[in-house]
């Protein structure tokens, strides 16, 4: 499929898979060197940007996020903004005010979240890369469920200018693609210092030269609670890694089990303050009753347009920051974050990467997701949140398929700023892995 074919068929593709919330009206690709899409929490000056939330409906930014600006400057054409959980609040891209993307391997199943539309687009469209954003696992989870490669780089590697914040100390922009080689190619474009995001200014050189991986460590706690099928596929993948000359050791990392509650305390605390800016003025819906006093006006707009999960996380984060409770759990969550960082660094003294399955199960069916409680959904993130609170780079590769043909992913975690080892192992893996593309018919 050529770029021209993709643009011609884009509407039909989207009707089937619902990966895009907004799409280019163009049917000609002109002199574009490549096509890309971006998660809808990255501002784009020619497309509506809603971050999956109805409260931002009608928001047309006047500027591009740095990562989008850089891809356009490199010859890329933005073809769509991808569907996602509202503000990134979810594991399945079902917590959206708009369309819910469908898994390319089974339309009755979810794409994962919260960059579900991005992973769906990367899986369905040939030669396509999509920008995702990870706060607690939102790149690797959907990459795993949709059978593609995805990288969330070190915190601070890619400028967050133009990203609609979820958790400022956690958000990372990365790349999702069918090809491991694309991750390095496009990360090289979007990485780098940007004085509009001070956290990007401390980064060292972005290394991309090949560096053969020698050993991985698998935390024993990272292979607990897996579905039988994921456990079996992962076991085979580990044997395959060994046959590629990679040493595999099992290690203890007890802090992993505390990462999930620590993540949700930190992330919702930050989110609840970030979302205070959405009050029915300046952005999105502004048709509230101006005869109301300002507190009542703000409350009316927020109550009407925030979705269920956004309200839940605002309440959770607001409570976590309140005196009494906050002094107890918020401070402890910050300590746990440091403990997890220290544990990764300790393990990575003797190993090149830490490895575990990306998700404990394959993409669930929508009717099963609807029966899950909020806590069940949070618990599903226990394998992806540790690297995210640590800010360490992590990359998911497809590593096999279950008996229904659904993809299974495994996630490599490296030390801060060591994306090069992740690119290298992903490219080595890609050379011997038999990727099964989904059947795409429109």
């Amino acid at each position, binding site marked *: 499929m050529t770029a021209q074919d993709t643009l011609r068929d884009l509407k039909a593709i989207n009707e089937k898979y619902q990966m895009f919330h907004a799409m280019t009206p163009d049917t000609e690709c002109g002199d574009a060197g490549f096509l890309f899409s971006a998660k809808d929490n990255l501002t784009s000056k020619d497309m509506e940007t809603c971050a999956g939330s109805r409260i931002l409906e009608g928001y047309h930014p*006047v500027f591009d996020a740095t990562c989008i600006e850089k891809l356009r400057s490199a010859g890329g054409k933005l073809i769509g903004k991808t569907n996602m959980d509202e503000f990134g609040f979810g594991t399945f891209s079902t917590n959206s005010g708009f369309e819910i993307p469908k898994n390319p391997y089974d339309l009755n199943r979810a794409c994962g979240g919260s960059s579900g539309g991005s992973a769906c687009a990367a899986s369905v469209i040939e030669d396509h890369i999509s920008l995702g954003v990870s706060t607690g696992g939102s790149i690797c989870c959907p990459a795993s469920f949709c059978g593609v490669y995805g990288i969330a780089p070190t915190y601070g590697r890619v400028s967050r200018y133009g990203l609609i914040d979820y958790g400022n100390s956690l958000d990372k922009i990365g790349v999702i693609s069918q090809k491991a080689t694309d991750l390095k190619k496009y990360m090289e474009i979007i990485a780098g210092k940007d004085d509009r995001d001070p956290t990007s200014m*401390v980064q060292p050189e972005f290394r991309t030269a090949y560096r053969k991986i020698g050993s991985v460590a698998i935390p024993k706690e990272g292979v607990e609670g897996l579905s039988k099928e994921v456990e079996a596929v992962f076991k085979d993948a580990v044997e395959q890694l060994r046959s590629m000359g990679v040493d595999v050791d099992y290690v203890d990392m007890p802090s992993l089990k505390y990462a999930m509650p620590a993540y949700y305390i930190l992330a919702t605390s930050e989110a609840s303050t970030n979302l205070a800016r959405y009050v029915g003025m300046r952005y999105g819906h502004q048709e509230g009753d*101006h005869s*109301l*006093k*300002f507190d009542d006006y703000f409350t009316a707009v927020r109550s009407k347009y925030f979705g269920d999960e956004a*309200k839940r996380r605002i309440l959770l984060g607001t*409570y976590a920051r309140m005196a009494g409770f906050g002094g107890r759990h918020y401070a402890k969550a910050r*300590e746990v974050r440091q403990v997890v960082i*220290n544990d990764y660094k300790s393990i990575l003294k003797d190993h090149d990467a830490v490895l575990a399955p990306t998700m404990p199960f394959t993409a669930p069916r929508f009717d099963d997701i609807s029966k899950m409680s909020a806590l069940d959904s949070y618990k599903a993130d226990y394998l992806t949140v540790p690297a995210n609170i640590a800010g360490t780079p992590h990359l998911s590769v497809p590593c096999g398929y279950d008996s229904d043909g659904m993809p299974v992913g495994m996630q490599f975690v490296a030390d801060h700023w060591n994306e090069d080892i992740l690119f290298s192992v992903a490219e080595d893996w890609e050379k011997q892995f038999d990727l099964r593309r989904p059947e795409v018919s429109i």
Partner: protein
Amino acid sequence: MMDEKTVKDVAKFAHIDLTDEELKRYCKDLGDILGYFELLNEAPGCDERGVNPIKVEDIVREDIPEVKFDADDLLRDMDTYERYVRGPRLS
């Protein structure tokens, strides 16, 4: 189960009105979630408590005046009155 008064107080502070059905649901959900988070009590502590996962330095850029965006472009999607952003009354 979190008590209704606490959830109502938190919601008021967060500028969110809850329906009766939402109040019941969030009382249960927050109770379940925070009950599980008690796990943090047994987590090992640490003397370090950074805000960011990497060391971030204060880096300032040159303060150069510029007009980066056209005011009319910025106001395009905003509810305005004579080029002022409209908002609710203050009292």
